[in-house]
């Protein structure tokens, strides 16, 4: 019995070191790219918002500074693309624990859950689905006090070696979206607006990246 208990504790202890190491490897890989520019096509598909895809130029500067230049209006998740870079820049503030495995995009991934060490910060919980073999994050789920939960899927191509995705799919919750009726200007419309109960509760923002210019 004692032997079994010792084995279990040892197993957890061993596993507890692995996710931290994996996370630190990810951080290291992230730190190799100090700045880059990339052409992006942003395709929001969000209930209650109709917008055509927008082309933009995204500039990144280490550690988490993103600049987006678009000809017109574009819609992004509230924190833009900086959710993950922010995590990587504060690696000492979390405890990384392994919480399972999952097959994503046809690859086995390790699920690392990041728990903040203090209760004061904005981050509540973060989960990363990591392709350990290629050292790539295939999915992230970040829950913050201010922005709620944001789920992102990452798809890689030519720039996978630098950890830079070719495509990113961000899922956002839109259940709190409200049309301020008093400000809606089509007052004379006599066709009914869509039944609120039929409006989807989630939307996506798909971003296609191309032509990375890494400096």
């Amino acid at each position, binding site marked *: 019995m004692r032997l079994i208990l010792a084995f279990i504790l040892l197993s957890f202890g061993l596993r507890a070191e692995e996710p931290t190491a994996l996370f630190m490897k990810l951080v290291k890989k992230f730190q190799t790219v100090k700045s880059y520019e990339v052409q992006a096509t942003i395709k929001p598909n*969000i*209930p*209650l*918002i*109709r*917008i*055509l895809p*927008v082309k*933009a130029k995204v500039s990144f500067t280490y550690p988490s500074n993103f600049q*987006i230049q*678009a*000809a*017109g*209006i*574009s*819609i*992004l*998740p*509230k*924190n*833009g693309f900086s959710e993950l870079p922010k995590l990587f820049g504060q690696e000492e503030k979390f405890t990384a624990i392994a919480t399972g495995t999952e097959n994503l995009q046809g690859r086995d991934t390790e699920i690392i859950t990041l728990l903040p060490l203090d209760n004061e910060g904005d981050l509540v919980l973060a989960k990363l689905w990591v392709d350990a073999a290629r050292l790539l994050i295939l999915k992230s789920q970040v829950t913050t006090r201010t*922005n*709620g939960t*944001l789920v992102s899927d990452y798809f890689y191509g030519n720039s996978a070696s630098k950890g830079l995705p070719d495509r990113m799919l961000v899922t*956002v*919750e*839109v259940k*709190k*979206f*409200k*049309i*301020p*009726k008093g*400000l*809606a*200007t*089509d*007052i*004379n*419309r*006599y*066709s009914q*607006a*869509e039944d609120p109960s039929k409006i989807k509760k989630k939307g996506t923002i798909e971003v296609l990246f191309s032509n990375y210019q890494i400096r």
Partner: protein
Amino acid sequence: MIFLRSTRNELIKIALKPRSYLGLAAITGLVGIILFALKADGMSMISFVTSSFEQTLRFEGNLLNGNLVAFIVLQMLIVHIPLLVALVTGDLISGEAAMGTLRLLVSKPISRTQLLLSKFLAGGIYTLLIVLWLGFLAVIVGQWLFGIGDLMVLNSDGLVILQANDVNWRYAGGFCVAFLALLTVSSLSITLSCFSDNSIGPIVSTMAIILLFTIIGTLDVPIFDPIRPYLFTTHMASWRSFFEDPLPWESIQKSIYILLGHNLLLIGISLFTFHRKDITV
């Protein structure tokens, strides 16, 4: 030929009447105030619209641009323009009667039909000038002051963001329909003008009818449902349909037909009334 000369006469009278410039001055003043307010504090106005979306999303780019400013200006002013149009067009027949010049006009060798149609045409041209002036101030001056950008429009079923290069034709279409709606106001006031021998009556009556129809149109009472789609006031805001995506072309067409129908009906009533009218003043 005499019809064109009569139309020229009517335009000269409108051009030289101080009242005609009241509308243009009012539009200039109102647009100036709106542009100033938007320049000073436009973003807070926009945040009323975007606040619920910004809980999880971020809008990148110049939201407060000339296209949005023009849209806001039109949205705010288009309900007031009928009064400014009626101030001039409601006076075209009754004003002549009140001044005593109607008996001189009608005793000239121009038919009453030509005389009345020349007044309709002149009223229409004045209305067009008002719309063009509003368009110039809203779109051209708006774009000059605030720059060009994508247009964000809030409809009752959500936000529509239209790309800058997709906006100008929508404004052109919107202005055409807005002109048609205001032309209906012009026709209504001229028609009422045929029934009156004083200047104020037709102007006040026009506004009263617009107010009444608007109230009927917005009251959520089922008994008005059958007539609501046929009230011209229901279609006065149809210019907005050009800023929906996808374009509700059928609805726009219906509005155009109904507004044209109103104009034809009003011109018909005017001709009938004016032909039978005894000029006793």
